[in-house]
């Protein structure tokens, strides 16, 4: 599904050369749930941008679902993002003053063919994340957790090969965070490839595999023996605990 081979990213600013990624290689199989972990400044964000085809590496090869993205032009990269990748961001990035439904169907606008049943698809996606009663709400009428679930619905509407989540719980309270993590685990269980980028070990351990970055290199690539169960955490969290936090 995902093959990285000697990925390097180097920024040159005047005479200063910064080697952010120094030869990253790994593979991710279809259906895997992988967390990419690292403190800030370890090249985690850069790697996530390359994985999301938002940025191209200075050297190396990246094959996503059979396509090497390194030599693609803007248009082809955009189409690749549209078809293969679903993004979930820390800041949600929803369009304000726009309903949940409209937000969710946004990727369809940039698809090669706008499906006739786009509205219904958006509704179905929202239903999947448990927001069937919030379809025509605007972001400012939704809680943080609900907004992030709208964003997940948006990421899923094109049925992408990979769900790429960048600190998805970073702006959420504990309970909403657990809800989001539970959705990811459900999706993973359903066969979806999920990549989670985070600095938080606790969050990372919801995944089946953790790739630890340090100084632009892979420091550790290990299986998680007992992934944390978000569903379980959710039931453990009582309303009372949430109030005290």
């Amino acid at each position, binding site marked *: 599904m995902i093959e990285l081979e000697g990925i390097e990213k180097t920024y040159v600013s005047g005479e200063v050369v910064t080697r952010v990624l120094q030869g990253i290689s790994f593979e991710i199989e279809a259906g895997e749930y992988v967390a990419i972990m690292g403190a800030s400044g370890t090249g985690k964000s850069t790697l996530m*941008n390359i994985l999301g085809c*938002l940025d191209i590496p200075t050297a190396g090869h990246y094959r996503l679902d059979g396509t090497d993205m390194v030599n693609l032009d803007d*248009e082809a990269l955009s*189409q690749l*993002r549209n078809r293969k990748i679903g993004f979930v961001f820390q800041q949600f*990035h929803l369009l304000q003053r*726009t309903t949940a439904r409209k937000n969710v169907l*946004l990727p369809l606008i*940039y698809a090669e063919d*706008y499906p006739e049943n786009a509205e219904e698809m958006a509704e179905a996606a929202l239903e999947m994340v448990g927001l069937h009663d919030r379809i025509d709400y605007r972001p400012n009428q939704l809680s943080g957790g609900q907004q992030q679930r709208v964003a997940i619905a948006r990421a899923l509407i094109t049925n992408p090969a990979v769900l790429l989540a960048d600190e998805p719980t970073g702006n959420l309270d504990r309970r909403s965070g657990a809800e989001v993590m539970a959705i990811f685990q459900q999706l993973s269980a359903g066969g979806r490839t999920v990549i989670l980028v985070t600095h938080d070990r606790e969050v990372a351990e919801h995944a089946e595999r953790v790739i630890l970055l340090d100084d632009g290199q892979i420091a550790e690539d290990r299986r998680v023996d007992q992934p944390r169960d978000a569903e379980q955490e959710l039931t453990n969290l009582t309303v009372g605990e949430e109030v005290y936090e």
Partner: protein
Amino acid sequence: MRRFHVASEGWGSLRANKLRTFFMMAGTIVGIAALTVIMTIGKGTERQVMRRVENFGPRAMMLVAGGGRATGPPDAQVTTLTLADMEAIRDKISGLEIVTPQAWATRTPLTRGSAQTRATLWGVEPEWHAAWDWYVAEGEEITHEDVATMARVCVIGSSVKRDLFGDEDPIGESLYVNKVRVTVTGVLERRGTAGTGGGDFDNRILLPITTAMRRVLNVEHIGAVRMITTDARRMPEQAEAITGLMRRRHRITPPAEDDFRINSPLAVAEVVRGTSRTLSILLMVLAGLSLFVGGVVLMNILLISVAERTAEIGLRRAVGATRGDIFTQFLTESLSVTFLGMVVGSALGAGVSLAVQHLTPLPVILSWEPFAVGIAFAFLVGAFFGVQPARRAARLPPVEALR
């Protein structure tokens, strides 16, 4: 289809930010409105020019006593224009089909029994009719014999007929011009009001020129010479030749002022255009400034909006928008603003034009042309000032936009 959906994303932000959209539109509204008014007045003016030139005669020139002004009736104080001048033109200037003199007096009292009126008196030759393309509706025209014999006859305009004869048949009846008794031989066709000041063309009386000069006015000078050229293109050259001839005959050397002037359709058109020219220039400046300043405002608001919406642009890029899509979206936003402004501006301009029509004597004609020109300008302004912000938005690297 994809293009359409991408482009229509440009509408969303306009609908969501109505006040901002209004500010972006303001310049276009005022500019297009001014443009519309210019064009309705322009078209009205041209229609009037055509009508006046038609009335004056497209191939006609007038040598008129008195210098200075461009048009208008002969200067009654100037007595230097004579039949000899007219004869000299007949002899020396080529390419003139008709050269015919006109003696002239305003507000001449006419009486018939107890009925009285005042009308413009014209002493004419038979060629007058052809020179003005204006013939009798009833009775006979003035003849060469009438001129030769200083006959006491006249042809009257329909207003004079109405005022002195009512419903009676005037042919063969007599009336008094300045206490000189003359017999009506004909009545002119009606022409209506079409003079420079909207005067009544039909309030006139024609006498044989000899009768007018000797018997009624007792003068040696004439008011004007009417000429019809064989070829309108030769008019400027002929006018120059006549000016030279007249200056020699009247011993005028510039810079001394001429005691005559030559009117032509061009001069008539000039006068008509002159009345609306100042306003048109003013409106042109207003339109130009509004469209330019409005365009700059539009561009700057869009640039600010691009900066504000960096994250939105990044998100759109992440979910599959190409640089071209982002460019299309922002250019659509700009074009939508100017097109909306154009619609409002055209309506406003049409409204102002109607007000001008009712409140001022300026001629106004509403038509589709200002709308077409408005569309063109809306497109130009929207495209020109929208390209820069759209390009900036499109060039944002997605990684930086999402940061």
